[in-house]
């Protein structure tokens, strides 16, 4: 029975990873990546590696998609504020904001 569980989990991992590659939009990719973290957690549990599964659960299903979502939100916000006024970014005083807005502008072109 363990072999069946491992086979199903392997199929889930393969299908989800392929789908994550084929999705081109970053926000949707973040959700698929979160599902991939879950599938990998189940696979690691079935092959008797709960420690790896625990770290995979924390990193893969929570932290990585959250960082992608935060980055996408910041890039979009930076690009819109740059289109409105360039002075607004300079008034913020944060160097990271200016750098991110510059990166977003380069990606938008």
């Amino acid at each position, binding site marked *: 029975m363990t072999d069946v569980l491992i086979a199903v989990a392997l199929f889930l991992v393969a299908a989800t990873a392929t789908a994550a590659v084929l999705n081109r939009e970053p926000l949707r990719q973040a959700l698929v990546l979160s*599902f991939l973290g879950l599938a990998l*957690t189940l696979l690691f*549990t079935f092959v008797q590696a709960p420690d790896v599964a625990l770290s995979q659960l924390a990193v893969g299903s929570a932290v990585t998609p959250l960082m992608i979502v935060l980055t996408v939100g910041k890039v979009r916000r930076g690009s819109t504020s740059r289109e409105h006024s360039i002075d*607004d970014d300079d008034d913020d005083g944060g160097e990271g904001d200016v750098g991110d807005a510059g990166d977003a502008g380069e990606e938008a072109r």
Partner: protein
Amino acid sequence: MRASEGWLVAAAVPLLCLLPVLWYVVRGEPRTRLVAQNLAQLLAAFVLLLSAQGFNRPTYLDLALVLAVLAPAGTLVYARFLGGLPPARIVRWTALAGVPAAVVPLCVAAGPGRQTVKLLVIGALLLAGALVTSAGSQPVTEPDAPSGAPEPPGGDEAAARD
């Protein structure tokens, strides 16, 4: 390692239910994807609970405990960024039917003790998280509305919970 087959067969049921959920995560609208992701986390928690008993390793329950804590928080953070979470009856009914169906036999099999308390805590967390996230939330603020001032990151979950 002596694995009891019946629990593993029971764990295969929510695992197979993950396959159609994967289709909705991959090919749905963004709102549908969020609901499907929420449902997938609930089903994965069931698989972890049942396989922990199936492998005769009670320490594997920690995985389900971590997932039960992380899953609602992650869903609410996503709902904040995707602009609201639609009400989902399927998540609510899956939780209301699945959590007692999984936790009660596990508690009977475990007998009185520390493991039963842990199982009940996991079940309560799963049920509470599923009920909160399946109630849905409306978009409180447009994500691109504030142009200048950055938002404090701590208020995201509180804003999404309203």
